[in-house]
C-alpha cells in the first residue's frame, strides 16, 4: 500500500482529535469528581482558556510551516484546528458563565460590559463564532472572496486574545508576555499580507469620503 497525501492528512487529523479531545474528557471527568485541586472552577476556566490560545497559535503556525517546507497538504488540517480553537473558547466562556457565575445572567452581562478584559475576550469569541459557522463548505462557496476577508480576522483575534490574557492576571505577567511575543512572531510571518490589509482599510476610508 502506498502512503499517499490523503493518508498523511487522515493520520494528522486523528492525532489532532486525540490531542485536543482527550484532555477535555479527562479535565471534566476530574472536575466533576472534585479531583482537580481545591477550586475546579478556576482550573477548568484556565485550562480551556490557555488551551484555546494554544490551539489558535498552532492554527496560525500551519501555513508558515506549509510554505517553508513546501507541504501544501498541511493546509487541510487548518479547519479542524480552528474548530477545536472555537470549541475550547466556547467551553472557556461556558465555564465562566455556568460554573463560576452560576448562571447569574445580570452579573454576566454587567461583567462583559464593565470589564475591558472580558469585553475584549467576548469580542474575540464572537469573531471566532463567525469563523466557525462560515467554515462549512456550502457557506464558504457561497461567500466567494469575502470568505477570505472574514477569515483574515484570525490575526485580529490573536491580538485580542493576547491582550485578554495579559489583562486578566494580577501580577504574574511573564506567561502572557511570552504569548504576546509568540503572537507577534506569527503575525510577522504575514507581514506583507497584514500591511496590505491595513492599507486597504485606509484606502477604503479615503474613497468613501
Amino acid at each position, binding site marked *: 500500500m502506498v502512503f499517499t497525501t490523503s493518508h498523511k492528512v487522515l493520520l494528522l487529523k486523528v492525532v489532532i482529535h486525540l490531542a485536543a479531545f482527550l484532555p477535555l474528557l*479527562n479535565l471534566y471527568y476530574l472536575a466533576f469528581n472534585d479531583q482537580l485541586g481545591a477550586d475546579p472552577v478556576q482550573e477548568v476556566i484556565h485550562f480551556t482558556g490557555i488551551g484555546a490560545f*494554544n*490551539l489558535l*497559535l*498552532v492554527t496560525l*503556525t500551519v501555513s508558515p510551516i506549509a510554505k517553508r517546507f513546501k507541504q501544501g497538504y498541511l493546509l487541510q488540517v487548518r479547519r479542524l484546528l480552528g474548530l477545536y480553537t472555537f470549541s475550547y473558547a466556547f467551553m472557556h466562556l461556558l465555564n465562566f458563565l455556568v460554573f463560576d457565575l452560576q448562571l447569574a445572567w445580570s452579573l454576566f452581562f454587567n461583567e462583559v460590559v464593565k470589564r475591558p478584559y472580558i469585553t475584549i475576550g467576548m469580542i474575540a469569541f464572537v469573531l471566532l463564532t463567525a469563523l466557525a459557522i462560515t467554515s462549512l463548505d456550502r457557506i464558504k462557496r457561497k461567500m466567494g472572496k469575502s470568505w477570505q476577508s472574514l477569515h483574515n480576522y484570525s490575526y485580529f483575534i490573536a491580538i485580542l486574545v493576547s491582550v485578554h490574557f495579559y489583562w486578566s492576571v*494580577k501580577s504574574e505577567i*511573564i506567561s502572557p508576555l511570552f504569548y504576546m511575543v509568540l503572537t507577534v512572531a506569527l503575525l510577522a510571518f504575514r507581514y506583507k499580507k497584514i500591511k496590505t490589509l491595513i492599507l486597504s482599510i485606509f484606502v477604503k476610508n479615503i474613497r468613501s469620503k
Partner: protein
Amino acid sequence: MLIKTPSKSALKTSDITDESVYIQRRKLIKSMGFLGAGALLGSAISKTASAGFFDSKDADSGSFKTTPLKFTSDKDNLSLIKTPEQKVISHNNFYEFGAKKNQPAELSQNFKVNPWQLTISGECDNPITLDYDDLTTLFALEERIYRLRCVEAWSMVVPWIGFSLADLLKKVAPNSSAKYVLFETLHDPEQMPGQSDRRLGGGIAYPYVEGLRIDEAMNPLTLMSVGLYGKTLPPQNGAPIRLVVPWKYGFKSIKSIVSIKLVREKPQTTWNKLAANEYGFYANVNPAHDHPRWSQASERRITSGGLFARNRIETLPFNGYGEQVAHMYKNMNLSKYY
C-alpha cells in the same frame, strides 16, 4: 497511553495516599494543557509545565510535619460549614513559593520553621524577640472559625488556632507614637524559590510587607495564627506564624512573619505599592466597591463538591464582621479608603 503511565508508576509506591494521586493528576492535566502547542512551539512554558509529568521525585519529596496543638475550641461558629482541610492546605496564594494556587503546597514542604525569630519592635517600651517555642507557649491558644475572603472573589471557612495580636502588642507596651503596625515576611530566597525566580514569584516585591492601623491591630478579631485544623500551620499556609484579619481581603493576612514593628506613619504595603488603584491599604471586604477588573458583590465559597457545587453567595460588608469592626471606620468614605 500517555494517560495511564503516571498512575501506574504512582501505584508502585507502597505508601500511596489520596493526596499524591491528586497532585499527580493535577500535573498530568497541566502537562496535557500544553500538549497541543507544546510539541510545535517548544516553549519554555510547556517545558516547565510538563516537567512535573516526567519527573517523579518532586511529588514524593518528604512532606512537612505538623504537630497537634492544645487549644480551646470555638463553640460560637459551629454553624459555619468549614472548607475541607485538604483544600485549605492545597489552594494557597503565597507567591514566595509560586504564584499558582497549587505551587505553595508543592514547593514549600522542606521549609525550615525551627529555629525561628519573630521580633516585635519600634514605638514600644518593651521590644521582644520570640523564638519558635514561644509562638505556641507564650499565650493560651484558641480556635477561631473565620471566613476568609480572597480579593479574587473566592472564599473559605478556616478553623484557625492562635492568639489575639492585641495580647502580643500589650506585652511590648506600644507608646503614644505607635499609630500603625508593619508586618514583614521572612526573606530567604534559598528557601523561598519565588523570591529568587521572578517567573515563579509572580513579579511582586520581596520581602512581602503588610500593615494595619493600631486600632485594627488591637481589635479582638485580629488573630496571630500558629495552626489550623488542630495542628501547627503547614508552610503553604504561613508557618510558623501568620496574621489573620477576617474582615479584610486575604492579602492583608501576611504569612511567615519575622518582624512586627510599631510605626508612626502609614506603611507602604506590597500589593498597594504594585497597583494602588486595585489594592487599597485598608482592603476591607466591601461588596459595594468593585475591584476595577471584577465584581466584589458575590463570591464562590470553596467547600467540597466538584464543578456543580452551587457555591456562589453574596459577599457581606466587612465579610460579615461589621458588628465587631464597622465602628472603626464610621467617619470614613469607604469608596475612597478602599
